[in-house]
């Protein structure tokens, strides 16, 4: 039966090649946009590359302090003391790292000034994130303890500052905002929430060591769990720790809150969730994204409905014959929906190829610095799912219309 459907579908598609082509172009255009979005989401949230372990680490980016009367609220990144005193001794986790958010820094070489994004990180940071080392070495705990003035560059930055092989940069000295650093390592470019930067240096290279005594500051904490199943427990642990923090100014700030978030939670918290409660609003965010995608499909679906309705009018003789020989309305409707879904799946395959090309181009023009897109199997799966939903969305109405055709009128050609 399905074979017959397929054969009929093929015959119909080949009879009017121009319309099949127009149909396909419309489907492909829609699916390419949706697949690019899916692929971006995949790259951002699925554990891969440098943040390959993200399914078992959590990050704390912001802290919220409330005053006694509830009128004043302050949100700031964490201070180093808070991470060192409260989070690092936490039991039941593999390790905890501290890193600053990337901030602008100028690299001076003779008369040349290059604007770079710099992070200061501790040795644990390099053990939680899987950077690919191209040359030299990564900083370790001994460097932190000794306060050595060393820096790690990514490949693009190394190429910009010291043209040639990555190894050429190792051992060179750079002047970052008036501080002299020795380059000890070069890592591959990476674009992820916690990985993104051009230059990394140990935290102990700050000009002043005041940061050690601050509860608020400019740091984020990364917590690596032993197993991903531990994450909910750690989130509750962190919530408890936050309750126990007493700010330097307890008269002004009564409560302190911070949350250990997964990457999706973090994004959801920044966009829809807010920083008041443990629930980050990730469910709401996903629902919003799905709704936006469905809404986006509305116009293309209408478009396809119009095209398909035209096609049914052409096929009314065929439909009349089938009805006269006893096919039920639901059988006919099913057939048309199947045909439409098939066409969408075919469009989906073409769109996948086009998406791969488009992403390669986006990567080439560096729309987002260091972004590397890969079309994983998951994107393929999502793409096909989107194509099917789209096929159903645009096939149901014409099918319903078709199945209502009166066989007598259909055969006589007066719809």
């Amino acid at each position, binding site marked *: 039966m399905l074979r017959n459907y397929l054969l009929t579908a093929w015959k119909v598609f080949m009879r009017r090649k*121009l*319309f099949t082509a*127009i*149909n396909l*172009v*419309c489907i492909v*255009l*829609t699916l*390419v*946009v949706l697949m690019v979005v899916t692929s971006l989401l995949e790259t951002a949230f699925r554990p891969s590359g440098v943040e390959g372990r993200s399914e078992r680490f959590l990050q704390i980016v912001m802290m919220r302090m409330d005053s006694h009367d509830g*009128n004043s609220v302050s949100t*700031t990144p964490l*201070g180093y003391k808070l991470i060192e005193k409260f989070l690092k001794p936490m039991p039941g986790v593999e390790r905890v790292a501290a890193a600053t958010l990337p*901030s*602008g*820094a*100028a690299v*001076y070489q003779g*008369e*040349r*000034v290059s*604007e770079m994004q710099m992070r200061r990180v501790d040795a644990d940071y390099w053990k939680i994130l899987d950077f690919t080392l191209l040359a030299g070495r990564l900083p370790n705990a001994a460097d932190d303890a000794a306060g050595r003035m060393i820096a790690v560059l990514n490949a693009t930055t190394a190429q910009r500052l010291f043209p040639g092989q990555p190894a050429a940069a190792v051992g060179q000295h750079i002047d970052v*905002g*008036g*501080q002299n650093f020795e380059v000890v390592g070069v890592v591959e470019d990476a674009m992820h929430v916690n990985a993104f930067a051009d230059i990394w240096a140990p935290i102990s290279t*700050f*000009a*002043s060591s*005041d*940061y050690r005594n*601050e509860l*608020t*500051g*400019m740091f984020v904490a990364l917590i690596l769990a032993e197993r991903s199943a531990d994450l909910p427990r750690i989130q509750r642990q962190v919530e408890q720790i936050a309750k126990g923090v007493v700010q330097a100014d307890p008269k002004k700030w009564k409560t302190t809150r911070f949350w250990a978030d997964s990457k999706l939670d973090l994004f959801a918290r920044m966009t829809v969730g807010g920083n008041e409660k443990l629930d980050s609003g990730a469910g709401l965010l996903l629902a919003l994204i799905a709704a936006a995608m469905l809404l986006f499909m*509305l*116009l*293309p679906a*209408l*478009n*396809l*409905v*119009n*095209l398909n*309705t*035209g*096609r049914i*009018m*052409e096929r009314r003789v065929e439909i009349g014959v089938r009805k006269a020989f006893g096919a039920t309305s639901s059988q006919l409707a099913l057939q048309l929906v199947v045909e439409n879904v098939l066409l969408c799946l075919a469009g989906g395959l073409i769109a996948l190829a086009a998406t791969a090309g488009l992403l390669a181009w986006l990567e080439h023009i560096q729309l987002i610095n260091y972004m590397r897109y890969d079309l994983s199997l998951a994107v393929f799966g999502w793409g096909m799912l989107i194509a099917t939903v789209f096929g159903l969305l645009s096939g149901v109405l014409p099918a319903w219309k078709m199945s209502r055709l009166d066989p007598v009128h259909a055969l006589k*050609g007066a719809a």
Partner: protein
Amino acid sequence: MFRHLLKLTWKRKSRNLMLSLEILLAFAIVFGVAAFAARYAQLYRMPLGFDSNDVWSVTIQAGDNGKTRFDAGVYDSLRRGLAELPEVSGIAFASFEPYAFSTYASDMRRDAKAPQVHTEMIEADDALAGVLGLNLVEGRWFSALDNGSAARPVVINRRMAEAMFPGVRAVGQQFIDGEGGKTTVAYRVVGVVDEFRAKGEFEAPVNFAFQRFEAGRHDGDIRTIVLKVKPGTARDFERRLNARLKLIRNDWAYQITPLSTGRKAMLHTRAMPLVLISVIAAFMLVMVAFGLFGALWQNTTARIPEIGLRRAIGASAAGIYRQIVLEQFMLSSIAIALGLALLVQLPLTGVFGESLNWAVFAAAAGLSMAVIYLLSLVCALYPGWRASRLSPTEALHYE
């Protein structure tokens, strides 16, 4: 002629309904993008209120998270040290520079009973007006005359003066901080600038107030140095500037940026969403064009017997052509009229406030109407031509 067309369209209403719905949706999307673009074009032409040429900013990163206080001596040593550089022609301090991504806003009111006026603010010293080339239209900028003044001196922009003191001369008036019940700070207006949009060309006009900063008197410090440099100062000045700053205070870090860099980053950030939605809308329009073309083609194919009959009883080829194109034109007009009736609710109810003012609405409506009419015309040309070319005999024998 018109009634005739209307009748034909009505005859095929269920089919045309779907087509109109599609055009309506496409119209709404084009309108959205056009309104966004029109608003940006409008904002870009408005005066900015300051001159960012040859201005550099230095953000002091003292590494104390803003806890320690700088005393007047710290500011004086920075001023003296930087004035010695031959490239520097003006030095001012502010809480942050123009084109920075930071915002500080508060609700102000004239007295305890007056309505609140949402106001963006920065703190500035006595030299900022000169460095940024602010245009004072009333009163004066801060000076040593304001030392020890009980109410905090402020300079506001004209927009805020009109919102806070409608119909009254703003200079000399006072207002208070509207937040919280107990500790209110009083402000005294000493001058009015014509305009100030700190976030640059694509920012909507806001109420703005500069508060005078006096070292040691307030809760926080201002840690951004705004420098006017001589025209033609190259980027490598940054290195000498940084070395000089390190001489003054070695334990601080400094983030130095020419305002032109900040401007580029800000414009880029603001224009990015527009570029993205334009690309997506363009994709959609291409798709709609293909779809309309296909649907019209099928429509005319289905109507071949009707066209044959018209030809047989004397209609000219041009007449048929006109009929197809005009029908499509009418369909688009119905969809656009419906779309406009819905979209006009937006400026009427004012959900988007000033961003969707009538000028923007008119520009966006005109632009999107032109696009949709053009699109439906282009899509109808070929199917119409094809239908007009049919010979009556063939058409009557069709099927």
